[in-house]
């Protein structure tokens, strides 16, 4: 949120339709994503009620649980979901591409593509995490055995849900998140959590304005909630009756059971179908935007993570722990912070509209180069160094102090140090910059490496450059202040037996 995006909201109110807050797309949208719309049973923790899932908009697969409180039926649901999801994931476990080494790293290989799961909203991401948690510790033999696909599903779901925490990751994407990152509506961020209302603002149906479409989207009869929570009125007036009918039919013959079950499935389909359509509409809208320059870089990181986890599974690694240990929590936090900073910088470098937010906040400025000394050398040390000076005139407020090091999106490998800033009231500010790096090896700058007078440039206080990873102790060396070395994970009876009721 910033003044710029808020201004876009104000414009959306005036025009009756959502306004762009990005000029390019910042998420990866796969050619063939898997859409997953889960519904949960009200009042229960992570109890699946139904889901619509599939990678083809024309053939959604409905999974339904006739009695959500029945443990066996829940595992049957998990097995049904595993059949679809694992087949989809396994489709990406073929082929390889080589990533060249560099900076002391060896060349390596990874899968050339990765799966992408689209869910309606963040609550669905949370449900995915819970479903992963409730299935990944199950055992496939002995007492309480479940189908082998169930714990495997749990591990993949957990991996995807954890990966979704990384800014810029697109393996598991929430549609409302992705859409509201690219468009500002004329309603509040709270109301943007309703997928149908959000899409109503962005892409209203023929003949309706954004606010009209959003208002229509709030009627749960035409636009049932996108889940995982169901509409309470549907629960009370339809679902309760149909589940009770399924229970009664258990005593009857196959035909009666079938009839009761298909009545329930029809009702659940009616709740899920509208959202299913919205999901593909959302994917299409996002796909229609031109991708930002760094989207491929971030998707490559997703492919790395996917390859890494597939190898973990192949090598028989244990399921993800219930809670992070001290060392892995610290490591994860550091990684998240680095990714957050890098992703923020990449988005700004890819997109002038995002950069404008930073310019308004005084973290960047843009303007025309009015003077340049491309051949200037610094002779103060023992060796002469090429240190060109340029002067940039900008209307943006320049709040940075002399000495600050800046980076330009056009020349990300070049550093610019502020020498001085001259501010005259009512006139654009003039910033004198000293450049270093990215100009070739000699004492003459390579052609095009120093901005020329007349060129419009932008300089920011941040960069997407490499940041060193802080050192963390080996888990075996966890200090006593942090609980000492964590115990090794040993699959326990308790994990496999855990109630799911």
């Amino acid at each position, binding site marked *: 949120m910033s003044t710029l995006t808020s201004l876009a909201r*104000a414009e959306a109110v005036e025009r009756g339709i959502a306004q762009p807050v990005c000029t390019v797309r910042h998420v990866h949208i796969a050619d063939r994503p898997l859409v997953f719309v889960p519904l949960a049973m009200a009042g229960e923790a992570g109890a699946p009620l139904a889901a619509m899932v599939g990678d083809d908009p024309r053939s959604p697969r409905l999974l339904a649980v006739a009695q959500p409180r029945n443990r066996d039926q829940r595992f049957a649901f998990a097995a049904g979901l595993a059949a679809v999801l694992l087949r989809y994931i396994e489709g990406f476990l073929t082929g390889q591409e080589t990533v060249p080494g560099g900076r002391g790293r060896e060349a390596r290989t990874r899968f050339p593509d990765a799966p992408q799961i689209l869910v309606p909203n963040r609550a669905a991401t949370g449900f995915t995490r819970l479903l992963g948690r409730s299935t990944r510790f199950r055992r496939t033999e002995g007492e309480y055995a479940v189908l082998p696909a169930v714990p495997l599903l749990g591990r993949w779901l957990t991996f995807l849900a954890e990966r979704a925490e990384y800014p810029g990751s697109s393996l598991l994407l929430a549609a409302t998140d992705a859409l509201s990152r690219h468009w500002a509506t004329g309603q509040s961020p709270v*109301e943007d959590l309703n997928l149908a209302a959000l899409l109503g603002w962005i892409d209203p149906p023929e003949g309706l304005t954004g606010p009209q479409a959003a208002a229509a989207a709030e009627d749960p009869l035409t636009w049932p909630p996108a889940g995982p929570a169901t509409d309470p009125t549907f629960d009370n007036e339809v679902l309760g009756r149909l589940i009770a009918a399924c229970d009664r039919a258990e005593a009857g013959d196959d035909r009666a059971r079938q009839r009761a079950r298909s009545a329930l499935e029809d009702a659940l389909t009616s709740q899920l179908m509208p959202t299913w359509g919205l999901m593909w509409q959302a994917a299409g809208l996002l796909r229609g935007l031109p991708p930002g320059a760094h989207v491929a870089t971030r998707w490559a990181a997703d492919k790395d993570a996917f390859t890494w986890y597939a190898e973990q599974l192949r090598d028989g690694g244990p399921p993800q722990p219930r809670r992070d240990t001290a060392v892995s929590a610290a490591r994860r936090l550091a990684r998240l912070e680095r990714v957050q900073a890098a992703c923020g910088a990449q988005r700004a470098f890819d997109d002038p509209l995002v950069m404008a937010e930073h310019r308004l906040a005084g973290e960047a400025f843009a303007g025309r180069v009015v003077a340049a000394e491309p051949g200037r050398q610094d002779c103060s040390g023992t060796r002469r160094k090429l240190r060109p000076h340029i002067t940039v005139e900008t209307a943006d407020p320049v709040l940075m102090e002399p000495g600050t090091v800046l980076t330009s999106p056009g020349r990300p490998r070049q550093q610019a140090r502020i020498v001085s800033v001259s501010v005259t009231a009512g006139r654009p500010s003039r910033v004198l910059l000293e450049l270093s790096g990215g100009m070739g090896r000699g004492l003459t700058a390579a052609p095009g490496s120093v901005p020329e007078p007349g060129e419009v440039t932008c300089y920011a206080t941040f960069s997407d450059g490499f940041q060193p990873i802080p050192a963390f102790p080996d888990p075996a060396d966890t200090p006593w202040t942090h609980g000492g070395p964590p115990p090794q994970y040993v699959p326990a009876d308790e994990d496999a037996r855990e109630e799911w009721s």
Partner: protein
Amino acid sequence: MTDTEARLSRIRGSVPARNHDARTIAALTSNPGCARRAIMDAAGIDKPRLASCAGFPAPFGQSQFAIARGNAFEAQVKANGCAELLRLLRDQLGLPMPEVSYDDLEEVGGNPSRELRHARTRGLLARAAASGVDAGTLFDHPLLRLEVGGRPVYLEPDLIAFRLHGRFHVVEMKSFAVIDGQADGDKVAAAATQSAVYVLALREMLADLGAGPDAVAHDVFLICPENFSNRPTATVLDVRKQLTVVRRQLSRLARIDSLMAQLPADLSFDLDLDPSGVPRRPPADVAAAVRSVQARYAPECLASCEMCFFCRDEARGSTSALGRAVRDDLGGVEYVATVLRLAREPGVPPAEQAEAAELLRAAARLRREALVEAI
């Protein structure tokens, strides 16, 4: 009846006063600056009904499954004289448990009248507080009373007041799950605020009987299902912060007179119910009455207040309808139209909007530049 009470009762009209419960009292703390809400809550207005009559029915409902699950969980914890609860307090929280007795205060000899039940709760708790005996006692379904806007309100908590070592503890049961030691933050926060209401009501009752505030602990025992099972688990919640918030909001409601002084003298939310309970007052008239009390709408109201759709409709065109953060981003300017005018028109803005105008113009210029550049 005091003047205030008479006035509030006139505002309420013939519709019966709506009972508060801990949930509605806790909700009072969510938008303390809203006069409309303060007046309605103090007068005990049936807000869902009023909202439907004004043409904006509230969007809330509760699933029968959630209710069934909550009831089943509570019954399980309380079964056999709270055997499960005692086991938890003993094993998980390490409380030393002597012989514990159990008193259910739900009915008084088959007489469910609230006054009687309250008197009995009071009597029993007074006796317990006065006895120096260090026996643990569980009091189920106590009926508490709290002053809300100068009016006594009965609270019927699904809770147990547990007396141990001369202090009362509130035991609150909630059916949201604690998974691997973590629970939904919003739900825990709501439970903490509700528990704070109970702690406050218990304290007031005991203060009447001459006990100090220490007689009721600010540590509340929260009982929730563990992981994906129905098995309960106990957690200790410190509700000191919530107590301060609730107390502050209640004292604000107690000064409702100053709010009422600004209202039209003939204000009434009476719905003119016919004998079968159907309102006869025209919707436009109801809406006009509601509008005469100022609201402070924020999108967060959509989660907690029954009047939210009415107020949202009224707030259309204002920046606060877009959220407080958006309003702040836009320099605190009240209307969307003003924002856009300040951002676009040259001219000299009024002094109080000069700063906002400068910000908005800079934003509009940057946005225009970036969008043109992208084409």
